[in-house]
């Protein structure tokens, strides 16, 4: 077993994901199977290999930077248009600190 039930709950907590009991057990089994397959990577020697974070092709270093020119932003109204709860130009969320 790569991953225990306790670890499943811990990871769900890190991911801010509420899981039902059935889901905890299902994901424990799924993750164990998938992580078991991933063990394969231990068979391949990567000594001295630089990790590849992004596809790299020959390009000038600054080729990806655009000119630093001001352009209109989205604006508060549009930015808030999809908020489940908004008011006074802000996103509203439940109380964070209890009195």
């Amino acid at each position, binding site marked *: 077993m790569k991953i225990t039930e306790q670890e499943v709950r811990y990871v769900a907590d890190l991911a*801010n*994901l509420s899981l039902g009991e059935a889901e905890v057990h*299902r994901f424990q089994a799924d993750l164990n199977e998938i992580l078991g397959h991933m063990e394969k990577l231990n068979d391949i020697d990567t000594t001295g*290999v630089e990790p590849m974070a992004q596809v790299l092709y020959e*390009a000038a270093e600054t080729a990806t930077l655009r000119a630093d020119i001001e352009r209109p932003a989205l604006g508060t109204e549009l930015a808030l248009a999809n908020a*489940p709860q908004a008011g006074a130009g802000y996103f509203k969320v439940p109380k964070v600190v209890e009195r």
Partner: protein
Amino acid sequence: MHIPSLTIDQIREGLLAHRFSAVELAQEALDFAATQNPSTNAYLHFSPERALRSAARVDEKVAQGQDPGPLAGVPIAVKDVILTKGVRTTCGSKLLEHYTPPYDATAVTRLEEAGGVILGKTNCDEFAMGSSNENSAFGPVRNPLAPGRVPGGSSGGSAAAVAQGTAVLALGSDTGGSIRQPASFCGVVGVTPTYGRVSRYGLTAFASSLDHIGTLARTVRDAAALLEVIAGRDPLDATSAAAPVPDYTHALDGEVKGMKLGLPREYLKDLTSETGDLIGKGIQALRKLGCDVRDISLPTTDYAVACYYIIATAEASSNLARYDGVRYTFRSASSGALSDMYRHTRGEGFGAECKRRIMLGTYVLSAGYYDAYYLKAQKVRALIARDFAHAFSEVDAIVTPVSPFPAFKLGEKIGDPLAMYLSDIYTITGDLAGIPCMSVPCGKTAEGLPVGMQILARHFDEPSMFRLAYAFERAGGAN
């Protein structure tokens, strides 16, 4: 007008000869799509106002004698992970059921500037995570050629719409095969361009180092023409490449005789017999065209699924963190304190596959596991890319199957996530290496299920890829 067989060129001809107007075509295409859609569920929603507005602009240009653009009046479907201002964009998720984007994706802007007419938004696996389109919160898509079978995924709706004829072209997105595999299952052409070739501004992020926007069409020419319109540098996407965009349709007519093609032996060993036979006949057809086909080896292929599902889920777990009940429409009703609101919104909003991938991605990035999984996978990714670079020092293109098997039955693999992941084996390598790749119809099984052939080429060498695909298409594929 027989909408299911129209091409870009025929539409242009018809418009310029005043045989029909763009508005007439758009209305007829919308009506046709609305009557056909219930059999596949390919479209999630239509955008008739926007379509008719775009069409009217085309008609105006034609009336004034101006060039109406390379995609004038062409009915196009857009995968529902690509943002359309004022037109609902759900990403196949309950979380975004009521989300209306405040801006357009650059690809959408460009295709409309070229005269394209967006009919509506197509169904997909939730946040593009899946290989069967069964992970949509709004029901699966049925394969138009075999209604009991999946269309592939995650761009299943886009592939089904093009195959069914309810769109002439479609935009899809591809992170691990999400354009090529459904194109193969539905018997259409699907193109994943070089990483960075098309701006991702307005593409909902899944795994940013792997995500692409690409094209689906019934012919190689039309898929190439759409790519030409949407490709190119975009100041709004820092990862978009500055390399000039070649004339892809012009490149189609070149010679393929003497072209060196690599046939990687690792891609041929686990095929179902019918898929293997068809790919074998396809290779024969390429030989007959004068291509120099040789066996090659891509030895790291066996590690690709493990490598991909570490990198893709790690990036996804980070990208999907934004759906927390604050900004994007859905918030759990059972939310007390802020932390509970986050947890319940995500627990109730995400479907099973998204949760599984968030869990997996969070795990592989978590303290103590980062080096063993994520860093290791990034190193293996470098080796996979190196394999391709080595192969391309000897051959001009690589030819493989798209999938080990044709379209499978609805429900057949949904209970076994690892089996589903393993079915992506031949398509994820192209995304990991960031090279252009496509699916072109090869033939059909005895049961009538399409099988696609994959062509992979060097970075930014879409012209060679299209030229080979076009020659193969004209030769009739494997038949």
